[in-house]
Structures are given as structure tokens and as C-alpha cells.
């Protein structure tokens, strides 16, 4: 007859040197599929509840600020692509606006309106990704796959305008590299016609969905005071109830000509962030429609304007460089850094996909910036993540991370 072994807990003898702690340390990321990017959080768990979290950032740091100190102004556009790559045209335009402010370039209205169209398309694609990913993390995959088809329409418009899709490098200092083709406008019309219906359906999948509401309401909440103290901007701040929008408070690219509202939330939780982004997509659609009408109103020679008349800063068409003397001279001057660049110090902000994207540029008159600092909204509000997730379940922390719209490229610069 075998001996009965008792296994009462207090009889378990831990080996010498064991830690007597009751919590578990776990790595969330850096390459976990649920983190949608290279994010690492070392979290301390009590059961399934998060006690504390330490964020580690910098896994894809690419020294953009250092690189920018060697590049002439027009080559920095490609660096900005790789910040928030879900809405790279906004970054591109933000950088062009910074250069134009430094150089004193006045862009024509038509260029401003075309830029507004592109920037709002980028905003829609950014919010679309973010909101559908929140859906995926709460268990609703359908919405994500469905709207990807319509992001594709936006990417096709980019492709038609500048030739690339994700890292767009769109536009030049002073305007665009070429006029929008008729195909681009046809694609825009197609998008404007089809997208509202899709967005309505997408909204219907989530907005009053019991499961979605239960998962998102009350999780990852932040008050307006804390959000401001943490330097939140963009939809995350507006969800907490502060109606700050760079497009309104500091209009650039003729945003003052458009009629739109700034949606705000009240609780600053995941659900409000989702709702704010969703409403912003509707507002963006309306802005695009208004801008398209304004663009169509240009007739004759005015409809051919796609850049400011600043030959000393605007890179000429390659075909012209080969055939026209003047274009060749200016091309040479710009590329070789022979143009006069004023010394100065300036800050230009644009409303990026996930907050205030700022460029702090110091020029000493040389061909490259003396110093360029990117104010990257992700980097700044990511530090609130431990506070947002304290006391939450792991699964809620995942939803919080995606609803903050963190983009690793922007976080790590």
C-alpha cells in the first residue's frame, strides 16, 4: 500500500534564495502580435491584473534628428515619411510647411486645397487603421478586413499623385511635383461616393455593439487635467474633453476656409477615443468634399497651378531639367546647395493623425538644418501608458495600447 502524500501549501518548501513575491513579471512585447509594432512593456501582474508597467522604447530608433543635420531641406521629406507611416502625407506636408515658413514661400490657394485633400485622406486612413485595430483587439476582425479595401482606395489616390503608397515622399517645397491627374480626381470621386456608406456600416458594427462597449467603456480612461499634464494632443486629448485642434487654433494650409467641427469626448476612455476618431473621419470627409469643390472652381490657367512660383526652392520637373536651361540651373543650384537659405529659428505644428506633430527647425543659413527636432505626439503620450493600465486586466491594456494609436516609427524616430 502506497504512502499518502500530503501537499498542503504551507508544507511546500521553496528552495533557498527563491523570491517570495506574489506577483509575476512578464514581458509584453517587443514582438508580440497584439502590440502592433515594436513595443515592450515589462509588466508586473497580480493574477491577471496589472500592478505596474515599465515601457521600453527605442527598438527602431533610426537617428532621424542626426541624419537631418546632414541633409538638405528637400531630402528630409523622406525621413518624415517614416515617422507616423499610417499618415505619411501629413508629415510630408508638415515638413514642407516648415520649410516654406523658413523660406518665406507663399503657396497658392489651389496648392493649399490640394494639400488639404491629401492630408484629410491621410487622416481618414490613419483613423481607419486605428479604429479597426481596436475592433480586432476586442475580437471583431470583420470590420478590419472590410475597411482595408477602402484604405486601398486612398492608397491608390496617393499612388496616382506621387507614385508611392506607404512612404509617400509627397510634394515639394512650394507645392506638388506634378498636377493631380484626371484619374486622381476620378479616384477621389469614387472614394467620396463609396466611402460614406462603408463608414456607416463600420460604425454600425461597433458603436452600439454590446461586447465592444463593455470592453471599451471605462478602460484606459484619463481625465482632461492629467491628459494635458501628460502632453496629450490630437484625438486622445479631445476624447478627454479638450477641444484643442491645431487646424483650428493655428490654421495652416488655408484650413480657415473650411467649415468643420471638432468632435470631443467626455471620459477619455477607449470608447470615447474610438468615437472621436470615428466622428473625425466624418468631418474629414466633409472637408475633402469642400476642398474638392473649391479645387474644381479653378478654371483655365488657374486649374494648372500646382506649385508656388519659387524657382530657387522648388525642384523643377526632371523633363524640364533635360530640356530647359533655366530648370537645369535651378536644379543644379538646389541640389548643390547654392540657394540662399535664411538663418532662423521656427516651430511649425500640424495636426497629425495622432496629435500635434511639430517641427522645431534652427537654420544657420547653411544648406542643411543646424538642428531639427521632431515633436512626435506618440513619444510624448506613450509615457502615460503605465498610468492608464494600472489596475487593469492584460486584455484591457492591449485595447488601450491600440486605442492610443501608437505608431512605433514615430515613437522611436
Amino acid at each position: 500500500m502506497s504512502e499518502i502524500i500530503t501537499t498542503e501549501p504551507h508544507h511546500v518548501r521553496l528552495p533557498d534564495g527563491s523570491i517570495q513575491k506574489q506577483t509575476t513579471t512578464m514581458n509584453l512585447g517587443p514582438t508580440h502580435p497584439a502590440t502592433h509594432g515594436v513595443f515592450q512593456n515589462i509588466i508586473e501582474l497580480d493574477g491577471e491584473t496589472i500592478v505596474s508597467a515599465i515601457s521600453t522604447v527605442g527598438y527602431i530608433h533610426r537617428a532621424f534628428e542626426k541624419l537631418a543635420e546632414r541633409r538638405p531641406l528637400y531630402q528630409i521629406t523622406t525621413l518624415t515619411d517614416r515617422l507616423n507611416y499610417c499618415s505619411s502625407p501629413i508629415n510630408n506636408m508638415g515638413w514642407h510647411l516648415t520649410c516654406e515658413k523658413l523660406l518665406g514661400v507663399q503657396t497658392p490657394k489651389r496648392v493649399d486645397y490640394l494639400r488639404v485633400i491629401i492630408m484629410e485622406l491621410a487622416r481618414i486612413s490613419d483613423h481607419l487603421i486605428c479604429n479597426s485595430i481596436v475592433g480586432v483587439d476586442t475580437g471583431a476582425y470583420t470590420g478590419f478586413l472590410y475597411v482595408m479595401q477602402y484604405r486601398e482606395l486612398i492608397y491608390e489616390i496617393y499612388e496616382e499623385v506621387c507614385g508611392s503608397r506607404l512612404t509617400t515622399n509627397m510634394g515639394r517645397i512650394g507645392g506638388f511635383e506634378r498636377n493631380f491627374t484626371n484619374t486622381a480626381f476620378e479616384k477621389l470621386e469614387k472614394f467620396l461616393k463609396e466611402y460614406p456608406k462603408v463608414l456607416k456600416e463600420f460604425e454600425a458594427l461597433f458603436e452600439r455593439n454590446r461586447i465592444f462597449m463593455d470592453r471599451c467603456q471605462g478602460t484606459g480612461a484619463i481625465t482632461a487635467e492629467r491628459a494635458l499634464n501628460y502632453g496629450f494632443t490630437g484625438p486622445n486629448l479631445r476624447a478627454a474633453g479638450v477641444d484643442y485642434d491645431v487646424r483650428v487654433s493655428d490654421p495652416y494650409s488655408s484650413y480657415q476656409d473650411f467649415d468643420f467641427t471638432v468632435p470631443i469626448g467626455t471620459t477619455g476612455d477607449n470608447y470615447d477615443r474610438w468615437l472621436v476618431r470615428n466622428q473625425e473621419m466624418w468631418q474629414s470627409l466633409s472637408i475633402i468634399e469642400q476642398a474638392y469643390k473649391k479645387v474644381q472652381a479653378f478654371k483655365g490657367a488657374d486649374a494648372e497651378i500646382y506649385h508656388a512660383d519659387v524657382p530657387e526652392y522648388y525642384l523643377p520637373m526632371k523633363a524640364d531639367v533635360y530640356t530647359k536651361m533655366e530648370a537645369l540651373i535651378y536644379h543644379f543650384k538646389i541640389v548643390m546647395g547654392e540657394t540662399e537659405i535664411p538663418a532662423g529659428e521656427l516651430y511649425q505644428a500640424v495636426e497629425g493623425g495622432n496629435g500635434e506633430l511639430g517641427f522645431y527647425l534652427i537654420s544657420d543659413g547653411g544648406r542643411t538644418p543646424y538642428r531639427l527636432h521632431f515633436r512626435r505626439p506618440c513619444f510624448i503620450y506613450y509615457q502615460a501608458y503605465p498610468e492608464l493600465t494600472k489596475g487593469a486586466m492584460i486584455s484591457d491594456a492591449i485595447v488601450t495600447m491600440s486605442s492610443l494609436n501608437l505608431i512605433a516609427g514615430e515613437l522611436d524616430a
Partner: protein
Amino acid sequence: MALTNEHIQTRLTEKFGEQLSGWEAQYGLLTFTVTSDLNLKVLQFLYDDNELKFNFLTAICAVHYPERKGEELAVVYHLHNMAERVRLRMKIFVPVEKPDVYTATKLYETANFMERETYDFFGVNFVGHPNLIRILNVDEMDYFPMRKEFPLEDQTRVDKDDEMFGRGGSYN
């Protein structure tokens, strides 16, 4: 009443007098320099003052000026009054041998990562920061890469045998 640059300057000069200098407003953004030991007092005043209410910290970054002896590193604060839609830039200069600056983390949570980034790239020592360690670069790094004495690699160099990247070696 709208908050004008002149008014901000008057208010600040009333309070701090000669300790503020270098007033300018390039591209309309009011900029001033304050002595390095006063940065927190000025930030706090700007935060609390009923009229000024600069209670949003947009960015902190540093700039290295190797030729300015004794004040090589500039720490630049961008502040924002959202209600009045006014921005403000505050600078402090510190010597590169002893780059000590008081931390703003007590006033702004957001200063935490910003100051860590500034430390990481320029070596500015934020006194009183709760966790002043490298943030974007590797922990083992023993220099501050954004300082001007570290130039980027010469792209035209040929001595590097780096065939994988098409430079030097048999591809030349």
C-alpha cells in the same frame, strides 16, 4: 483681451527683471533666455499666473553650440497657452562640462520622456529627474551622439570594406 507678445514680455520682466534676456520674436513666436538656475521658477510662474496660463508643455529639446564657450548647450522649452492660442519659447544655456538643469517633471508629467531624450542625445543632466536613463539609444552607449563633435560617417569614404552595402571592396 488677447494675450500679446508685448504683454507677456512686460509681465515676465516685472517679475524677473534682468534675469531674462535675449528677447526676440522670430516668425511671431516670443523667445527669451533665462539663467539656468531659474528655469523652474519661470515655468511655475508661467503655469500659475492668472493671465499667462502657459500650462501645456509642447516640447523640450537641446541644441549644441560648440563655439559658445561656457554655454555650449541650450535647453529649449516650448510652452503653449491653448485657450489664448499663444506659444512661447524659453531657453537656458549651460556649460557642456557641467550641464545641470533642474527637472520639470514635478510640474509636467510629460517632461519625463522629453528630458530623458534630451539627456540621451546631449547629456544634459536634469537634476531631480526620477529616472534619468537612456531612452532611445542602447544603454551601453558612453557618449552623447547629437553633440556636434560626432559627425555622421562620410558617405563617400572608400576605405570601408563593406561589400554587403555596396561600398568599397570589389564593387568599387
